[in-house]
């Protein structure tokens, strides 16, 4: 991070497209923007083709002899398998409505980060290879043949899209550049062109059940560590259950929350909530070390890889014989569960339609997939007055909420987390319209781009989000950015310290746990982070 530009240098208000036409502007793969290539061992482990050591900065990418044919055939296959792809290739009118909607374009000023041009990178090949008009008109019709130069361009820009779907909200035809990026990445993966920040988590997840490669005993160790922390803070020993056959409910959350701050506090929040419910209502929920990942970096690789990794959720639910599943706070995990899981790995007819054992609420909206979002579950508990909460314990926090892209635009989970936050915190302020709810801005690090080597890209891509936080920080004194996504919790702290250093990142269930009054707890004087609670600032001294 040492040679990262300063915020003043990164913020460009005057970016203009280059003078040369985009097809005639060669791609320059830059450090700070590009990610490192996938580790061959990781590709091999899950059987992805052309595993080898390479780097995007190399001259020779060590492609298979017939790479053009592979791309052509792969393209063709996907046009038949995905109507979305074919229609989106055909109908863009280049009106430009999507252009300044992409955070990566806003932050980098690179015209090929306009969603429409990102799509044109593929569309130009589509026209050349699959349409008559493209063949006849050539460049006038926006067609060009597939070359190495084009492939490099694909690679560079497909990994500068976080598949956030913001462009799709504004397009008059709903063209979703995220969908095009997904196809682009699938094609690149046919040639072994993945990035390591995706490839290695995928391999880890396949083997150990989670992206971080945490083995079962270590997983338990980590939660035990949180148990100690919780006991120290609250005086209550919480005891999570693992891999319990016959439990009522299975809980699956991203492993990032087990692994690194500030996600760990959210994880502690889940543990405390489940403990509370167990003591009070006999709630019976189990964690799994096999299905110990909510997230799905397969989603950033290919539809097939997404399915392979996702399969563990239902498989484990079936093996344990639970009734239904609760999923933790994660962004892309919920796009996968909401829009793909049941189709790919269902029907989950071995599970029951989810009913809250505490309130009796039927989660009708999840009756086929049988998986409920934790904020839906908690909002329902709060609505029914099932939680004893002391909101004032969060009075040091002046909160705003960052809608994560996938729950917002691939699900519509907008008011449930807000309801929870407003019931556990007294101070809540929305960011400006146009930056929240379905128009929310990405953290800049989604879809596997939260590596270290592309920090300039991440800080640039996160600019619109950070800037909206800055505006409520300055006008309302907001010091807390709440989120329901593990990638956010990993990525936003860096983003905040770069653009708005006074703001901390919280998970929603961390704040729930701060407010939650456990049975038999001692007088708490700190929050889960060990920071003094409001009014307790001097009590240590």
């Amino acid at each position, binding site marked *: 991070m040492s040679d990262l530009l300063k*915020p003043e240098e990164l913020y460009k*208000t005057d970016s*203009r*497209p280059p003078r040369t036409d985009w097809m005639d502007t060669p791609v320059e793969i830059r450090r700070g923007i590009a990610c490192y290539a996938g580790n061959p061992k990781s590709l091999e482990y899950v059987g992805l083709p052309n595993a080898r050591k390479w780097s995007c900065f190399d001259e020779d990418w060590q492609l298979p002899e017939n790479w053009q044919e592979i791309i052509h055939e792969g393209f063709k296959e996907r*046009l*038949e*398998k*995905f*109507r*979305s792809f*074919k*229609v989106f290739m*055909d109908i*863009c*009118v*280049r*009106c*430009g*409505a999507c*252009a300044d909607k992409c955070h990566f374009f*806003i932050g980098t000023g690179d015209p090929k980060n306009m969603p429409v041009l990102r799509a044109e990178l593929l569309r130009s090949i589509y026209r050349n290879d699959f*349409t008559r*008009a493209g063949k006849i*008109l050539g460049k*006038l*019709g*926006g067609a060009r043949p597939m070359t190495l130069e084009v492939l490099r361009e694909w690679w560079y820009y497909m990994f500068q899209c976080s598949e956030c779907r913001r462009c799709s*909200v*504004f397009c*008059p*035809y*709903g063209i*979703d550049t995220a*969908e095009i990026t997904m196809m682009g990445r699938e094609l690149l993966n046919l040639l072994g062109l993945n990035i390591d920040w995706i490839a290695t988590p995928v391999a880890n997840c*396949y*083997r150990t059940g989670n992206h971080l490669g945490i*083995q*079962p*005993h270590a997983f*338990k160790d980590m939660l035990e560590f949180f148990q100690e922390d919780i006991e120290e803070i609250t005086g209550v020993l919480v005891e999570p259950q*693992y891999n319990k056959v016959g439990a009522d409910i299975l809980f699956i959350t991203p492993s990032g929350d087990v692994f690194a701050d500030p996600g760990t506090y959210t994880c502690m929040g889940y543990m405390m909530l489940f403990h509370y419910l167990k003591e009070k209502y006999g709630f019976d929920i189990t964690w799994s070390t*096999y299905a110990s990942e909510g997230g799905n970096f397969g989603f950033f690789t290919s*539809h*097939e890889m997404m399915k392979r990794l996702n399969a563990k959720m239902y*498989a484990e639910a079936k*093996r344990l014989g639970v009734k239904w599943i609760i999923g933790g706070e994660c962004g892309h995990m919920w796009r996968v569960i909401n*829009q793909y899981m*049941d*189709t*790919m790995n269902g*029907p989950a007819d071995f599970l029951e339609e989810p009913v809250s054992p505490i309130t009796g609420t039927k*989660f009708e*909206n999840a009756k*086929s997939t049988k998986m409920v979002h934790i904020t839906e579950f908690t909002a329902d508990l709060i*609505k029914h007055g099932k939680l004893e909460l002391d909101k004032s314990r969060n009075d040091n926090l002046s909160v705003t909420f960052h809608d994560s892209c996938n729950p917002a635009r691939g699900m*519509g989970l*907008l*008011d449930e987390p807000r309801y929870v936050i407003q019931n556990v915190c007294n101070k809540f302020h929305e960011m400006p*319209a146009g930056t929240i709810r379905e128009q929310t801005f990405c953290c800049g690090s989604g879809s596997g781009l939260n590596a270290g080597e592309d920090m300039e890209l991440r800080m640039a891509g996160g*600019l619109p989000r950070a800037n909206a936080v800055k505006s409520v920080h300055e006008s309302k004194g907001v010091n807390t950015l709440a989120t329901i996504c593990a990638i956010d919790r990993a990525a936003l702290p860096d983003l905040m310290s770069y653009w708005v250093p006074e703001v901390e990142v919280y998970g929603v269930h961390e704040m729930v746990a701060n407010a939650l009054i456990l049975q038999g707890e001692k007088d708490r004087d700190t929050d889960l982070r060990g920071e003094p609670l409001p009014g307790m600032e001097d009590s240590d001294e």
Partner: protein
Amino acid sequence: MNLKYMYSLLAVIVLFLVSYILAGTGMAFKVLFGIILPYAALLTFIIGFISRIRNWARSAVPFRITTTCGQQKSLPWIKPNAIDNPFSKGAVVIRMFLEIVLFRSLFRNTRLKMKAGPKITYNLEIFLWVGALAFHYAFLTVLLRHLRFFTEPVPILVQLLETVDSFFRIEILYDINQFGLPGVYISGLVLLAAVTYLFLRRVFIPNVKYISLAADFFPLFLIFGIAFTGILMRYVTKIDVVAAKELTMGLVSFHPTIPEGLASIFYVHIFFVSILLVYFPFSKLMHIGGIFFSPTRNMTADTRATRHINPWNYPVHVHTYEEYEDEFREKMVEAGLPVVKQPVETPPEETEKKE
């Protein structure tokens, strides 16, 4: 210099000159422009359009990838956004209707401003929406008004439309209207203005200029040409409308004729229309059909409540629990995690035998 539009402009000028000159040279070319090309163009349009639609329809819809633009339907006391996050087919119909009739998504358009501070603002930008609506409705009105040339008697609705369209009389410059409806049609002028606006934004807004292809300018010039020649005929050169209708009625009744007294500009007009018809199915103008097929807009967002079927769903390799436990069994037992199979304490000799 980015002069992509010059190619398209040049193409349209050439088409104009060619048809204008040739149509004046004699009967053969009048037959070509007035009969053969219109028939061929219409046939191409119909076949092309249908085959594009069929081509889209042939592709599978494996997943329900609705773009949700509002609150989902979840707990009964949380108000869902029924249209932007449609849970039922009916809601999808409303969503699609609003997209098609009002260009609803385009209405969300914002313009970004990056100021010192750093401060970024997003303001509503309705010009594209207004321009696009004006363009499409003017085009539609003109199209419907032209039904008068293809029907006898003229349907009452078409007459009504003409009345409404010419209602706001600006000024009656030339009182030459053989159909007894004096006045200036607003739609023609709006069409011309809107096309001009769409062209200018492609030239003057840097981002839009950068993404525009030569192929994006061509239909704009062509439609400008159609509207322009139409207005010219109506208000300036005062074409013989009865003769024009004789030709068009000949086409629809499959008894084509070339009446006397039609000026060359008329042939240019229908030649341009023919070109547009041919161009249509092979170009982005197919967005009219495509929008109906757009999976992010035309699908319900009830994926967790009703299962969507993927026609090509195939089995994949997964890492089973058994494989997982086999790899980590000892560690799991040591950590006190439950296992399905207990590790067998194998005496050393037995292991040897197995090998």
